[in-house]
């Protein structure tokens, strides 16, 4: 337990910039909610689009992993792109239906222009934040040397739990 606390303290000390950025970017929507500028629709859309941003960086991580045998990483990256891409699009369709947003999911320009105001800059901010974290931890600190592509592939799926909680809360509310 003490060792773990020591490790956490050392980790937070050396990674305070990425940790602070992560918390700050996550809490920015909270400020916008308190200011009365953001509602559930915007928050849900942001979390969905963030899953897309994380998926893109995860492909970069898989392709840069050093531990995996020749070309296997390419197949894993391809499999992840198709599987996670379908997962992401499925979530998007469900979300658009729930929020009653009429968007042509096959047309990225239509999707981007249909987004409520304020989402675009926040997505760009998330893109920078996750990019900085990937550059710092994965490349600068050398995590790419020991990363396991199997674990990398599963990594983004744990995050979708937040969207699932909100979907079920709404489904149950309607059902009652």
């Amino acid at each position: 337990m003490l060792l773990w606390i020591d490790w956490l303290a050392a980790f937070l000390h050396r990674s305070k910039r990425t940790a602070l950025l992560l918390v700050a970017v996550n809490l920015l929507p909270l400020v916008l909610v308190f200011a009365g500028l953001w509602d559930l629709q915007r928050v849900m859309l942001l979390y969905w689009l963030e899953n897309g941003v994380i998926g893109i960086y995860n492909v970069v991580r898989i392709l840069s992993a050093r531990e995996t045998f020749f070309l296997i990483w390419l197949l894993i990256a391809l499999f992840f792109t198709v599987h996670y891409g379908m997962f992401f699009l499925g979530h998007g369709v469900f979300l658009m239906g729930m929020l009653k947003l009429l968007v042509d999911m096959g047309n990225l320009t239509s999707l981007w222009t249909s987004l409520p105001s304020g989402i675009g800059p926040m997505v760009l901010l998330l893109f920078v934040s996750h990019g900085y974290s990937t550059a710092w931890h994965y490349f600068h600190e050398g995590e790419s040397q020991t990363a396991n592509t199997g674990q990398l592939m599963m990594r983004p799926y744990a995050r979708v739990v937040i969207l699932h909680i909100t979907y079920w809360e709404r489904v149950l509310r309607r059902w009652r």
Partner: protein
Amino acid sequence: MALNEPRALLVGLILLKTILDVVLHVRSHARQDQKQLLQA
């Protein structure tokens, strides 16, 4: 188009997501640190 959700639900959702992100972030890097230590 806007959904009239109670603010408490939204605040809870954002805080839960922030905590989850921090936990996943720390857990993921702990695993990598452990691997690097074992290799060293």
